[in-house]
């Protein structure tokens, strides 16, 4: 019989009848989806468990690091530095530097004159620092010299960067001075040697950046000038060497060393190519004979990660505990998005760069004093002169390999996880847990929507808060699309935004885009909150007239909504919120995988545990989940587990870490995505 629905139990409209008739001929895909939605809650938990188990199993399936680019020809040539006549000159320069420079700006000027005497095209860049954090009387300057390859075409260059800090008033100035002398000796000796070799095909740029203004910041300023980012830099006295293809930063902080740390992480988890890492690691290991470390150490050599609970030695431990600890701390550093060395400044300019940090850790730092396990690697390079020769020899071989390349590294992974210094995971392996988490969230959202659909069969709600399905779907889709679009720009720009924040000078476009992205993300959260709050307002109960013939067209008499309808509305808003969270997390995966992973590990259980509160038990469970998975609990826990070295000791420190020391991307994500969703979970989970 034709006609609209006239009561809650009548399901006689033609569409229903057709659907019932077609039930016998449902496609297998539809049946599968319906089965998934029926058991969705268990299935989502299973997916989450599978993802977590996959992640924990990853350290054991990691493969050994290998050279992917054939053109590198690593260690094919013999180093000539040790027997070169420039060795004596370099040693002389090192001692002259110690004698004649007493700190302050005179060091840079002296260096520039020595570079000119060597025959390099030299330039000095004075950094103008603005902002409250900088001492106004401090003037930093970067010095660089270019050695032109005599038979090269001058179109490509390789960069050697040695940051030095000459601070006469600072405590530890003597050690800084000696370290600076070592760095300068390495650079001078290497460039002088390259001036005599016949195999140089690319120009070599030696950059001495000023560490007093921040080694990363001064590197960025130098690169901006080199790439002529500001129009005023073109045509100035700043000498250039063609396209920079590779760069090695040698950050020397002590005059002797017994281990070398290799820092990989850049902004937002960007990494240099794996071949670059392996080149530096394998050559340093062979030439210097000291242990190689990842950035999982504090300055005194103690472990940063949670592995010390299990007695692991960090990245040098090849057991499961060591690999897991190394992997977790690696993921933590990627998620944090803070660069670990000046090489991070090169990545936005498509230059493969890496930082080497020779360190003196002391005898007990790496698993006991001179244990027999260290073997020949238990060396301490005690003499600054020997340190200079060893490092220069290593760098000569590294640069010779980079010289062999045609332009840049054409092969090689740039997305990977290191589980130790010589084992890694490719992206196809570590992307799976995130995909499973996101799938679990979408499945949960689908179940909730199905629940909402079945619950909201009740017609005749007040038009005040009943939404037709088209408007509902449209608004949900629009909010998802906006959320997805807003996230990547806010993260990709965060490096430049972060720099602008630190120097106090906002670029107009950067600021506008950051504000827009934040506004959109927060706006989406507000919109979903509004949806939720709106569904709380129910119309008053009014007596209902019996249906007459005139009401056949679908009377809108108000009836009290059934319990199912209320739960349905709650489930619907929750579904939209979960969809948004999953979509935003997927968008973030494309920018910073580790950040998405760390947040999803907490967010997925939150969405799975919170059910529309049908009773006191459910409400209690929701409350506990909201408490345990709140940002106030998750943030300290994540910091403690992944990067305990950065954990502050008091509330003020936490506030500082959360609001100023974290990169902008991480901050934006926590405040604009995780917090609104957590708040929505409160709204969905605690009140019907």
């Amino acid at each position, binding site marked *: 019989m034709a006609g609209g629905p006239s009561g809650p139990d009548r399901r006689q409209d033609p569409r229903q009848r057709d659907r019932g008739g077609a039930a016998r001929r449902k496609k297998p895909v539809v049946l599968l989806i319906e089965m998934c939605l029926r058991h969705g809650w268990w299935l989502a938990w299973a997916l989450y468990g599978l993802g977590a188990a996959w992640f924990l199993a990853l350290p054991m399936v990691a493969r050994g690091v290998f050279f992917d680019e054939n053109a590198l020809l690593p260690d*094919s*040539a013999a180093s000539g530095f040790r027997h070169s006549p420039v060795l004596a000159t370099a040693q002389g320069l090192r001692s002259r530097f110690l004698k004649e420079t007493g700190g302050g700006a005179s060091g840079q000027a002296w260096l520039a004159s020595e570079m000119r005497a060597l025959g390099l095209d030299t330039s000095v860049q004075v950094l103008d620092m603005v902002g409250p954090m900088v001492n106004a009387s401090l003037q930093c300057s970067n010095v660089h010299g270019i050695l032109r*390859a005599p038979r*090269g075409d001058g179109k490509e260059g390789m960069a050697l960067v040695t940051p030095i800090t000459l601070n006469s008033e600072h405590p530890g100035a003597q050690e800084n001075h000696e370290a600076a002398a070592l760095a300068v000796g390495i650079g001078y000796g290497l460039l002088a040697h390259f001036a005599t070799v*016949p*195999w140089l095909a690319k120009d070599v740029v030696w950059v001495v950046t000023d560490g007093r203004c921040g080694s990363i910041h001064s590197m960025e300023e130098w690169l901006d000038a080199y790439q002529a980012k500001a129009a005023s830099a073109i045509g100035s006295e700043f000498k250039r060497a063609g396209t920079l293809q590779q760069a090695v930063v040698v950050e020397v902080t002590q005059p002797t060393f017994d281990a070398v740390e290799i820092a990989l992480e850049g902004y937002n988890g960007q990494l240099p190519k794996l071949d670059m890492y392996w080149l530096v690691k394998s050559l340093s290991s062979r030439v210097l004979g000291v242990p190689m470390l990842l950035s999982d150490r504090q300055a005194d050599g103690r472990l940063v990660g949670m592995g010390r609970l299990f007695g692991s030695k960090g990245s040098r431990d090849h057991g499961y505990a060591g690999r897991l600890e190394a992997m977790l701390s690696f993921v933590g550093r990627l998620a944090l998005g803070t660069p670990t060395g000046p090489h991070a400044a090169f990545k936005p300019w498509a230059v493969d760069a890496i930082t080497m940090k020779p360190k003196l850790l002391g005898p007990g730092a790496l698993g006991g004093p001179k244990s027999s396990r260290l073997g020949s690697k238990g060396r301490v390079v005690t003499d600054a002169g020997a340190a200079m020769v060893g490092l220069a020899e290593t760098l000569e071989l590294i640069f010779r390999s980079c*010289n062999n390349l045609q332009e840049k590294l054409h092969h090689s992974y740039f997305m990977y996880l290191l589980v130790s210094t010589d084992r890694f995971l490719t992206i196809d392996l570590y992307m799976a847990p995130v995909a499973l988490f996101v799938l679990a969230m979408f499945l949960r959202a689908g179940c909730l929507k199905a629940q909402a659909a079945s619950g909201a069969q009740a017609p005749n709600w007040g038009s005040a808060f009943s939404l037709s399905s088209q408007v509902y779907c449209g608004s949900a889709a629009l909010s998802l699309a906006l959320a997805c679009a807003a996230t990547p720009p806010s993260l990709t720009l965060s490096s430049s935004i972060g720099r602008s924040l630190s120097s106090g000078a906002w670029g107009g476009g950067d600021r506008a885009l950051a504000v827009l992205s934040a506004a959109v993300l927060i706006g989406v959260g507000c919109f979903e909150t509004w949806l939720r709050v709106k569904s709380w307002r129910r119309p008053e109960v009014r007596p209902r007239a019996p249906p007459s013939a005139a009401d056949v067209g679908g009377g809108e008499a108000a009836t009290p909504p059934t319990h199912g309808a209320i739960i349905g509305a709650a489930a619907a808003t929750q579904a939209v919120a979960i969809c948004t969270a999953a979509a935003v997390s997927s968008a973030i995966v494309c920018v910073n995988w580790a950040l998405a992973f760390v947040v999803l590990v907490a967010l997925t259980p939150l969405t799975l545990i919170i059910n529309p509160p049908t009773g006191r038990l459910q409400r209690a469970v929701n409350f506990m989940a909201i408490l345990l998975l709140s940002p106030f609990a998750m943030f300290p826990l994540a910091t403690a587990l992944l990067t305990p070295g950065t954990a502050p000791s008091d509330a003020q420190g936490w506030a500082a870490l959360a609001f100023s020391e974290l990169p902008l991307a991480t901050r934006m994500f926590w405040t604009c995505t995780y917090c609104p969703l957590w708040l929505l979970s409160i709204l969905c989970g605690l009140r019907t």
Partner: protein
Amino acid sequence: MPGIARWLGVLMLLLGAPRPSLCASMSHTSNWAVLVDASRYWFNYRHAANTLSMYRTVRRLGVPDSNIILMLGDDLACDARNGHPGRVFNNADHSVDLYGDSVEVDYRGYEVTVENFMRVLTGRHDPAVPRSKRLLSDQGSNVLVYITGHGGNEFLKFQDNEELMAQDLADAVAQMHEKGRYREMLFIADTCQASTLFSRFDSPNILTMASSKKDESSYSHHNDRDVGVSVIDRFTYHTLEFLEQVDMRSSVTLQNLFGIYRQDLLRSTFTYQSALFSRPLNRVKVTEFLGSVTVTEPTQEVYPLSNKERLLSSPRLTSAQVPPQN
């Protein structure tokens, strides 16, 4: 009887049966060599060294430059990364400079393409291509083709950019046979999976030598720590070691050459295909392919010049003073 013979002949032509090997019965009148280095870039230094070593060898054994087509994919002698500019070595002791002043490279750099290689083999060139770049072989020529580079299953990489397929090579050789551009051919390949490159040949009088078989790589011999790169491949190294004892008058046979290749020396399996070759290998001298045949007839007679040529050859008259030829 003649009628039957005629019908048999027609039938054979119709069925496309291979003609009897007329070529082998022709006398051997010349030697040609096509030497190809299909790789470019500094890390493929050893391929150029391989090819140049074979070039020096065939020249030493008598093949003149006019009969050699040398194709080098990259100029490594003048690469900025070469610490010995203008020189290419095939041994870490730097005993022989393969490049020097007397090398004649016919196809250089980006001219080394699959198309040009096929044109050289088939002889189908643009009219403007000079004689020095053409393979002017005929039915009496023994042709040596030596190829090196990076190869795979039934292909060879040219310049990291394109591939030469085994079927195309076989078709080119079939064309050569149709056109009578060779008497006998020896193919040598020093690449990975080298024997697969020759797996489609079905023309007569072809002999192939390959440094490795399918799913096997061919390896470099040693690294030169001064130049900073591997300078020679194993197969070519051992071949050259053998050929050092061969000179123009040598009667060493191919059987002797094939006998030196061992699995432990090459770290790959040397493969040869002689099914299409009519003569037994112990009767074929190495110099028949790597050396040169020149028939010299000393004579007392003067070569007959025309009147104009005689006058022109005199140094006192210019062409303006020569009376017009009748």
